């Protein structure tokens, strides 16, 4: 946000009086009476709305009749509900139920909404009748309200109405059923909740978000008894059901679910599905799963392998690092890059660059990636140690900048001289010699260790001779 706008907003907010909340601490009944007097007077709409706003905080049963008188008023119905909705007294529910028969149009829609917010179970019959209203907005509101009540009695008319629902009300009825199922599940009525989810799943031409929600609900409502349902959807030919099932697993911890994901991965040859499964498995950070995932994924197409490589990094599976090393030399540059990046985030990655058993090229690849990322002195020293054991001109290039870093100079000088000596002993000495002259001269000039300087000068002489 630009600084000037910040200033304007701050000034506006700081200077705003009266501040919200400073009116709520006057003494209860007297204040309510005064506010009701405003409602009954010829005060302006603004004043009456202000009174209602305050009654939302301080209103009591005593305020209900005066507020209820406005529920059918197109101008003040909302203000009345604003005050009534939070008052925790059954008198409010009675007033709202009465208004269901009296209000019309948008005011009625609003009243229905407030009934739903308050979850008034006694309003179920009235709301069920309103499901059949020719006013689609009223019918939709009634569907949401019944869902908010969420009892078995509220769910029944929703399910019945869905059978022959019009396009205008279908989604609202589904929404109502979802809410009812969630309430029922929370109350321990798993069988009834499951019946709702199964009904939604079987709904002809149900939109994707309804099917996704139904799959999720049907699996989760049963807890660990939902595993067979999860397995079934992971085996489904329907991509949407499969994807919904995989997505649901993010809400399901535990090894049993991990095992089902692994099983699904073993069963499918479809790359898109493999990718989704691998990503879910990676998020579970289960070493057992990673080893299973790896074997399967590496037999797959390129994009599956790419996702699997990155999954190792996400899972932080340092033990998998050796599996990444061969990929550093992969002919596919994307896979090689993925391997480098994944390796770089694994704990202790740089230490691998000093271990025997890796080829010089593999160790160089690790160092190449690390060179752009090392920050701390100990990391730089580890990098230089690793580079010092790699007889490569590129290693010289990676070491050289550190010769000019005072804190790293001595380690860098020693590493550079070691590499140069190895190269000058090698079969390609003549070819690489000229490229060693300048770096060795730099080391001979800057290094402080006498022995390193002596070796640098000797290697420099040798390089010059070889370069002739």
């Amino acid at each position: 946000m630009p600084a000037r706008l910040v200033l304007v907003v701050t000034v506006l907010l700081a200077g705003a009086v009266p501040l919200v909340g400073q009116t709520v601490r006057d003494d209860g009944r007297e204040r309510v009476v005064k506010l009701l007097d405003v409602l009954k007077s010829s005060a302006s709409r603004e004043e009456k709305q202000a009174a209602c706003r305050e009654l939302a905080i301080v209103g009591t049963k005593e305020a209900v009749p005066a507020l209820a008188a406005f529920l059918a008023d197109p101008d003040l119905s909302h203000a009345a509900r604003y005050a009534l909705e939070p008052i925790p007294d059954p008198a409010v529910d009675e007033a709202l139920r009465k208004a269901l028969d009296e209000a019309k149009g948008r005011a009625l829609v609003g009243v229905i909404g407030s009934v739903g917010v308050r979850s008034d179970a006694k309003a179920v019959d009235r709301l069920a009748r309103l499901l059949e209203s020719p006013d689609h907005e009223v019918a939709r509101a009634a569907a949401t309200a019944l869902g908010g009540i969420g009892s078995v009695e509220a769910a029944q008319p929703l399910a019945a109405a869905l059978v022959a629902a019009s396009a205008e009300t279908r989604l609202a009825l589904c929404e109502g059923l979802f809410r009812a199922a969630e309430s029922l599940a929370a109350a321990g009525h798993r069988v009834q909740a499951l019946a709702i989810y199964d009904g939604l799943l079987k709904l002809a031409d149900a939109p994707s978000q309804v099917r996704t929600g139904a799959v999720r609900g049907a699996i989760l409502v049963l807890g660990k008894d939902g595993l067979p349902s999860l397995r079934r959807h992971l085996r489904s030919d329907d991509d949407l059901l499969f994807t919904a099932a995989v997505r649901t697993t993010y809400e399901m911890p535990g090894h049993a679910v991990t095992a089902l994901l692994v099983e699904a991965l073993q069963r499918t040859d479809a790359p898109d599905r493999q990718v989704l499964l691998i990503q879910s498995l990676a998020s579970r950070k289960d070493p057992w799963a990673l080893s299973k995932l790896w074997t399967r994924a590496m037999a797959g197409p390129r994009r599956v392998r790419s996702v699997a490589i990155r999954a190792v990094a996400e899972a932080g599976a340092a033990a998998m690092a050796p599996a990444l090393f061969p990929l550093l030399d992969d002919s596919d540059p994307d896979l090689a890059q993925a391997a480098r990046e994944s390796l770089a985030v694994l704990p202790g990655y740089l230490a691998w660059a000093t271990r025997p058993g890796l080829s010089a090229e593999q160790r160089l690849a690790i160092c190449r990636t690390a060179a752009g990322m090392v920050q701390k002195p100990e990391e730089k020293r580890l990098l230089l140690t690793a580079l010092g054991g790699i007889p490569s001109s590129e290693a010289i290039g990676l070491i050289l900048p550190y010769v000019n870093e005072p804190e790293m100079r001595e380690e860098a000088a020693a590493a550079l001289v070691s590499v140069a000596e190895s190269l000058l002993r090698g079969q390609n000495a003549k070819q690489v010699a000229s490229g060693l002259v300048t770096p060795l001269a730099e080391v001979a000039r800057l290094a402080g260790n006498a022995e390193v300087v002596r070796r640098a000068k000797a290697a420099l002489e040798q390089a010059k001779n070889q370069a002739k």
Partner: protein
Amino acid sequence: MPYERSKLTRRQLLAGAAKAGAVLAAPVFVPGAVLGKDGAVAANERVTLAGLGIGGRGGYDLGCFMEEPVIQFVAIADPQKSRREGVKARTEKKYGPGVTAYRDFREMLPRQDIDAVLIATGDRWHTMASICAAKAGKDVYCEKPSTMTIAESLALADTYRRYGRIYQAGTQRRSISNFLFAADLCHSGKLGKLTAVHANTLHPGVTHDWVPAELEPPKEECDWDLWLGPCPWRPYNSQYVAGRWRGFFDFHGGGILEWGAHTVDLCNWAGTNDQKMPIHYEPTASGCIATYDDGLKLVMRDDGWMGLGTCSARYEGEDGWVETGDSGRLEFSSGRLRAEQKQFTEVGTSAVSHIKNFLESIKTRRPAHSNAEVVARSHIICHAAYIAWQLGRPLQLDPVKAEFVGDEEANRMRSRALRDPWRI
């Protein structure tokens, strides 16, 4: 080119590994095999995007989206004709003729060809529009704040969980390097046991006043009823629709939320990895000090910052502290911590990485960085703090039910009745 192939710093890689695969996970459809002719994105790989209420900040977000090759922008809805026509003209320059402009978003959302919606209306509409979009099967990128009340926060999380849609709040600092780095210091234990996290917020006060009424324009020019949406009615004034609606209680969640949507969110992430909410809220003159069940403090304040830019955050532990802000700079308690720092290139307001994360989530169906669950928690914290400040007394919050313990007045303030025909 796949949008995930940008060069990553180690810190970004580490941060990515700490999240739900956001940075490192490849999308389902890896380009190469699916690139269309001339490098264009194949039709079945595109994400068709619609906009809802795109003004100033939304215009910036739209620009970021338009830079992504997978995006095809197809529709805009706005009750103000000048805005919707402006977005239509802008996007048609890139995508060609055929971007549809709607006054009423309810006509736009049922379109089956729309995958995702960018919502950048005023605060009052964020929850309602996001919920409507999810019910219509869309994924949503919605500017902050995500909600105006505790009840809206719960409804938002419920809806996105229910329908399996992707939600990304415009709290882009969760994807910005210096903020990632500071949070990483907390998560990695480098600050030791955390004692306090500080969120830069603004003065909470708002007004209920109405500005003078002006003649309401024709509906096609500005649909005032739709602009108000779920908020209490008040007469039209051009000031509101020109963007000067902040500071009015009906339209704005208050100063704690204004920046707290970012900074309290960052603090809750850094301090608890989004797992908790404070249970005790003690109002101060212009903010609140909240306390978690383990004693960690979350201090919401508008002053005493080190000048590191807007939306600053500070994390304190037994072994040191770090403070950062939108300038991208960081200050530390010690050289040891300073040595951890790397040069960052993105600054606090850039939404580029955040939008890339959203697009990735659309493909992979994995939760985005600022998904509905985590923002619901951070917003509940802001709302609870604001309620405590309004009432002028400490409050206890049951973090499971998100209800206040033993305080009916406070509980009445958890929600606001919505104007018909709107409901969540």
